[in-house]
């Protein structure tokens, strides 16, 4: 089963258009949505949750169309948005009590366990939490009601590297269960590179590419060579190049490169920047 299926999704907003988006997230996998600010990542997530109404297209969450009874479907979906919308005066303990009456499958044990893992204080008010603690609390709530799908919108931005690593680790553990899936958007590409099975690039409301991460990394590479060496490579294999008076750095298709040129691995970040520039 697919955890999430988006077909021909379109939505026009003021000065922005999400254009015919198609995405499939197989169950048990993690997909990273990468895009600049304003690329349409948050819009997509809001459309999935029906926080925005789509103009056309279909969205299927865990096998259920999001047009019928989305409230019921949301029981199985853990959501963390950019801002964790928890009232400022509540403590983590009180949040647990509220959620107990919000979600049918709320688990006090799971929640307590996550609070402990994230070393979140029980009795501190939410307004006194640091940004990192707020995010961690949001993630703890999202993971404590038997969620099968997590939707995370910029859940790691604004966190320090150590906390980000903790969060990535938690999410990695979450998907040990093959019925658990994650859609996570971010512009911190390195986090997604660590975590994801699939990578989707978005730009100006369009999907540029959606592919297995390791396939991308195996297909593309970076070479450093002389302009003359570059001239001997088929132009179709050279995707992008930066020339200086001392040599050339180029993003290339690995398979077209002669063995005497050293290919270094490319990062998803480099690939993304190149694709966005290309799309202009």
């Amino acid at each position: 089963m697919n955890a999430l299926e988006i077909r021909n999704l379109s939505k026009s907003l003021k000065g922005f258009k999400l254009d015919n988006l198609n995405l499939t997230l197989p169950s048990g996998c993690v997909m990273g949505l990468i895009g600049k600010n304003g690329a349409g990542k948050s819009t997509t997530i809001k459309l999935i949750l029906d926080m925005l109404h789509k103009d056309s297209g279909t969205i299927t969450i865990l096998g259920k169309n999001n047009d019928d009874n989305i409230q019921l479907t949301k029981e199985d979906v853990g959501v963390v948005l950019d801002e964790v919308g928890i009232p400022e005066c509540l403590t983590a303990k009180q949040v647990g009590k509220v959620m107990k009456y919000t979600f049918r499958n709320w688990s006090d044990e799971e929640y307590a366990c996550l609070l402990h893992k994230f070393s979140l204080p029980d009795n501190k008010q939410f307004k006194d939490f640091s940004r990192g603690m707020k995010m961690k609390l949001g993630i703890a709530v999202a993971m404590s009601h038997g969620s099968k799908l997590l939707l995370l919108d910029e859940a790691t931005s604004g966190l320090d590297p150590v906390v980000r690593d903790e969060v990535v680790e938690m999410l990695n553990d979450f998907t040990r269960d093959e019925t658990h899936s994650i859609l996570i958007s971010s512009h911190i590409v390195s986090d997604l590179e660590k975590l994801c099975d699939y990578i989707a690039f978005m730009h100006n409301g369009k999907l540029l590419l959606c592919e297995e991460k390791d396939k991308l990394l195996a297909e593309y590479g970076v070479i450093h060579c002389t302009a003359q060496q570059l001239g001997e490579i088929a132009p179709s294999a050279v995707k992008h190049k930066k020339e200086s008076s001392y040599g050339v750095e180029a993003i290339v298709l690995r398979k077209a490169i002669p063995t005497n040129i050293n290919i270094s691995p490319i990062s998803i970040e480099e690939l993304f920047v190149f694709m966005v520039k290309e799309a202009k």
Partner: protein
Amino acid sequence: MDILIYNKSGAPIYEQIYSQIKSQIISGALKENDMLPSIRGLAKDLRISFITTKRAYEELEKEGFIYTIKAKGCYVAAKNVELLREENLKKIEEHIEQIVQLAASCNLSRENIIEMVNFSLEEQG
């Protein structure tokens, strides 16, 4: 069981897993009917993509090094160790042929060759 992934090496990750498990089967570190780690568990422990681990296992299964029991797991297969021996024998024969040709080109006698082989075997102990 040790599997080491080098992200910087440039070799596809699935190939790294594939070849490391394969060589452990060949060397006998992994024995017939030994259970391999689950695809998902291995992916999460190594912090790599689930799809990649799956591909490595599929490749191993295709070549007969491992077999899968549905809903249980993957195990080391028996047959192909034999096949591998065959392959190695073939390789040895090829090398011997080269030795014979080289020996002929420098007029080495049959006794000399056997002596050299014996010496090498004793060295290996």
